[in-house]
């Protein structure tokens, strides 16, 4: 399932050669098939991850039920409040009264520092006006109440994570800005950095006097507000980048962009960016040596093995990284193909990769039930779903710095 709306195409084939893709773009499908996609899953957890920000999800129960389970998965369900709306409520607009009543009660019993109201396609379609309610609550209780439009109908010109970023910026603007800049901010939506993260180690070594604040692991709302007093922002993904960019525009806080990467050249670029940003030198040759050692070992073990990749948005990137170290990627599963993927697709074509690209929603049952025989290793949930006899390697959603991500996958493949 994708958060983005359908882009009309004429594609009905289930698979493509790499060289064909450029001519057949955009590759998308009208129907999505039954595989879980966490693309929208992060949104509710991102909204819920800041302490003392409560989320009220108002809409048909069909929409809010899945939010509940996503929040439970991350242990955040205590801050999620569901306000189901019936068909009659929508027709009469009665749900707005209920919302106002619910917000009043929430503010007075929970002492929320901020509330985000999640609204669904149903209210977006009917053009329900929430601003008057949120403004009333804000002026009565002095706490910000923001409306977030979720779901594919809200795509319009900005993506959901960007709009959530806008909400966080609005909340940050209410914070107190101090002159003294005391900490580094890690901005990203992937959750707390693992304890053994190389990035954490580097920052600990070189930023002895500064506190590290992680957006996804703040201890209080005050820490969230204090992000605006950061000395440097390190953006770990697209969400972090957008937020960092705005914080730079507003408060002149510099930032580095270190998105997780799989291929060596981009990984080295990240190290360089980090070192230049911190003004230090770090000998990461040990990391690079370990990477080459594992490659040598893995390449020997995996000679002739056919690999399928299906990890979501970064599938082409991973496929290209694996091919570049001499492994054979036979199949890549994708929901759609976007322009940023062409860079990796072209590189794969140039080196003569024979990988076939399967558009997940066009996969026929005969292909599915055939289990894609002949695939030895399936990397990612989508690949594992279809390659029934392959060794399954699931890729963590946690942020991985430097070579950590690709090493984890290579070691899993042995």
């Amino acid at each position, binding site marked *: 399932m994708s958060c983005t709306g359908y882009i009309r195409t004429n594609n009905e084939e289930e698979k493509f050669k790499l060289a064909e893709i450029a001519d057949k773009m955009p590759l998308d499908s009208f129907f999505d098939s039954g595989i879980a996609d966490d693309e929208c899953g992060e949104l509710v957890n991102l909204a819920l991850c800041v302490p003392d920000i409560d989320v009220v999800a108002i809409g048909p129960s*069909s*929409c809010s039920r899945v939010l509940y389970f996503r929040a439970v998965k991350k242990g955040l369900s205590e801050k999620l409040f569901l306000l189901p709306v019936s068909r009659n409520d*929508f027709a009469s607009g009665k749900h707005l009264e209920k919302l106002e009543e619910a917000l009043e009660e929430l503010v007075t019993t929970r002492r929320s520092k901020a509330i985000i109201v999640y609204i669904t*396609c149903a209210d977006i379609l009917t053009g329900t006006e929430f601003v008057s309610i949120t403004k009333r609550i804000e002026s009565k209780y002095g706490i910000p109440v923001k409306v977030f439009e979720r779901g594919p109908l809200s795509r319009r010109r900005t993506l959901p994570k960007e709009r959530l970023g806008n909400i966080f910026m609005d909340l940050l603007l209410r914070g107190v800005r101090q002159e003294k800049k005391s900490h580094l901010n890690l901005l990203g939506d992937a959750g707390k950095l693992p304890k053994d993260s190389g990035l954490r180690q580097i920052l600990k070594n070189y930023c002895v006097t500064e506190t590290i604040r992680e957006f996804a692991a703040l201890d209080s709302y005050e820490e969230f507000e204090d992000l605006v007093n950061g000395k440097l922002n390190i953006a770990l993904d697209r969400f972090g980048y957008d937020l960092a960019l705005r914080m730079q525009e507003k408060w002149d806080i510099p930032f580095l962009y270190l998105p997780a990467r799989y291929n060596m050249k981009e990984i080295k670029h990240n190290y360089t960016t980090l070192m230049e940003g911190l003004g230090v030198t770090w000998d990461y040759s040990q990391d690079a040596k370990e990477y080459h050692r594992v490659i040598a070992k893995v390449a020997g073990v995996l000679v002739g093995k056919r690999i399928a990749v299906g990890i979501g948005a970064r599938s082409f990137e991973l496929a290209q990284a694996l091919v570049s170290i001499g492994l054979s990627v036979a199949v890549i599963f994708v929901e759609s193909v976007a322009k940023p993927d062409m860079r990796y697709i072209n590189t794969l074509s140039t080196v003569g990769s024979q990988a076939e690209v399967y558009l997940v929603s066009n996969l026929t049952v005969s292909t599915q039930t055939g289990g894609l025989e002949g695939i030895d290793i399936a990397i990612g949930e989508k690949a594992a*779903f279809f390659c029934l006899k392959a060794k399954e390697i699931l890729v963590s959603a946690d942020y991985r710095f430097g070579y950590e991500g690709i090493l984890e996958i290579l070691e899993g493949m042995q």
Partner: protein
Amino acid sequence: MSNILTRLPSLARDYSGACSALFALPSLNLLYSPGGCSSAVIECDEIRDLRQTLFFGSKLGEMEAVMGAEEEFLFQAERLWVQNRQAELIAIMGTPVSALTGVDIGAIADRLSRRTGLPSLALPTEGFETYYSGVYHTLLTLGKRFLERRAKINNQVNILGYTPLSLGKETHLSEFIDQLGEFGLQINGLVEKNNLETFKEMSSAALNLVVSHEGVGLAQYMQKEYSIPYVLNVPVGLSGMQQLFQVLAEIVDISPSYASKQRYALTSRASLGQRAVVIGEPLFASCLASCLRKDFGIDYVESISLMKMDRRMKQVYLEKALSDVHLFESEEGLARWMDKLQPDIIVGDPLYQRLLSKGCTQYVPMPHVGLSGPLYADAQYEFIGRRGYDYLAGYIKV
């Protein structure tokens, strides 16, 4: 906070129920939705392997949602059918957006049927009702569309109303099905994967065993059209099986063997004045309550369901087997009632514990997938026959 579900998710919705009921059939299931609605089915409500089913959800942008995308939907649906020729029928389900924008799902189904030559069903789902409604209407629609008069087969019984949403994984029914098999009965029903022809053979049955209240609609229809009697019974515990034997003896003229009777011989337990509450799907709750009374000697047992009744199903709630089930529409109401009653034993989904005051009761976990989705679906629990009795006995101290 009487309007806000702070502690429990809502029950699975009607289109999830429809998908669940159709799982066993070679049906191409299409959800008319902007794109997020299928998440509920994929992530929460369908605990079986989705690779075994043809389930697709559409993706619509704002323009398509507002202006309608019927032509594109039809065009793409036909292409899907071409890629999946093993489908014997097509089912189209609506969601809140299609309901609010007045999409004529029935017309789409008719046109798709003409284009593909396959029967296409327009299921009356909108995402606002519970899965009970979705299963009820799907079964009834299937029955009205596909069943036809056939010669009676005296040793055939149907199991109506099974979905994992109410009864968990199909393995929970194995003791029930094995017992029916021991009696030499042929069993039909949407429990295992089947084709449409097998579904049509259901009208040959001598008896319909209804295992959830969602199946009552189809059972009532089959009684009226084909004179097939029906019984509402989930054979929970020993007494549940005894009741099953009694029904089979009366209607299908089958007598259980001595061994079977012994296996399910009722225990005689003294009543200790305890009070128990069972929370779950209405028929399941009622049958479980009956088990607590007869197998465990608990005199005072209340059966409860947390749900809002779909008025289209009101004939179902007139059934005698459901007459003692209390229906609560809000968790606040349920929590207040439980606080007042202070039961000694509660049997229900683990999530209901959030509604309880601390430290009051023996709690017997009985997962309800339609509420807690995948959270406890793999837990070790039983309810049918001897295994069900043993499971409950492991918790209930009498």
